[in-house]
């Protein structure tokens, strides 16, 4: 059973574990990612998340399906919040149920790593003096044939 969602409002964390409840499971875990006040010495007042929604949703489903196959988990649910997320609020929640705890922990950790490299969601870090989009080096794996343009410029229609 796979349930993924992108939401513009607060994530109902209390519902996440019930989404993955199963009589087959001996373990259920819930991971939440929250906005922290300081990153690399810079204060954060809030984060703003944007996404390419159709592809982000598809990628989240794909990751859940992969996690089920790879870790033999029972159920998986991922919800990511978009828009403004203040310090202390939850931006992402992952719930997993599995027969044993090792698979549950491993799959949740794997899912979080893959969300950070595969899913087209972006955060903008905002404080009193600056705001910038975060584009980490470690997600460059998405790039293909980076910027090697061999064609000559041509007159454009507009």
């Amino acid at each position, binding site marked *: 059973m796979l349930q993924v969602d992108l939401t513009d409002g607060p994530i109902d964390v209390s519902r996440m574990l019930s989404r993955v409840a199963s009589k087959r499971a001996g373990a259920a875990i819930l991971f939440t990612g929250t906005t922290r006040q300081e990153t690399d010495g810079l204060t954060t007042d809030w984060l703003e998340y944007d996404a390419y929604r159709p592809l982000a949703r598809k990628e989240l489903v794909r990751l859940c399906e992969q996690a089920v196959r790879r870790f033999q988990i029972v159920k998986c649910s991922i919800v990511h919040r978009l828009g403004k997320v203040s310090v202390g609020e939850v931006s992402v929640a992952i719930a997993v149920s599995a027969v044993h705890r090792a698979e549950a922990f491993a799959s949740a950790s794997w899912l979080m790593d893959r969300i950070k490299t595969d899913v087209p969601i972006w955060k903008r870090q905002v404080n009193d003096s600056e705001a910038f989009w975060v*584009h980490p080096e470690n997600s460059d794996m998405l790039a293909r044939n980076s910027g090697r343009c061999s064609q000559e410029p041509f007159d*454009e229609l507009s």
Partner: protein
Amino acid sequence: MVESDSQLKSETAVDEVSVKLFAGVAELANVKVLRVSVKHLTVAEVRCALEIKLPQLIPLLSRSAIAVDGRYAKEDEVLCSDSEIAIIPPVSGG
């Protein structure tokens, strides 16, 4: 004569495509949707057209993937003029 006119047209013909921009790419371009002209309808040509039209995008474009109709695309993939094209800069969800 007709044949040479036709040949001339095929050599100079261009298509316009619409490209969705996100995050830092949209900020640098100052728009969220951009139209660019391409000689051939391929992903690589769209990337090149963007680099030519907005050189300030090059550093981030070189680290970006391109999605077509809601899935990640390869550089040699052929497009339709109404394909939904999106530039996907390095992601930072979570």
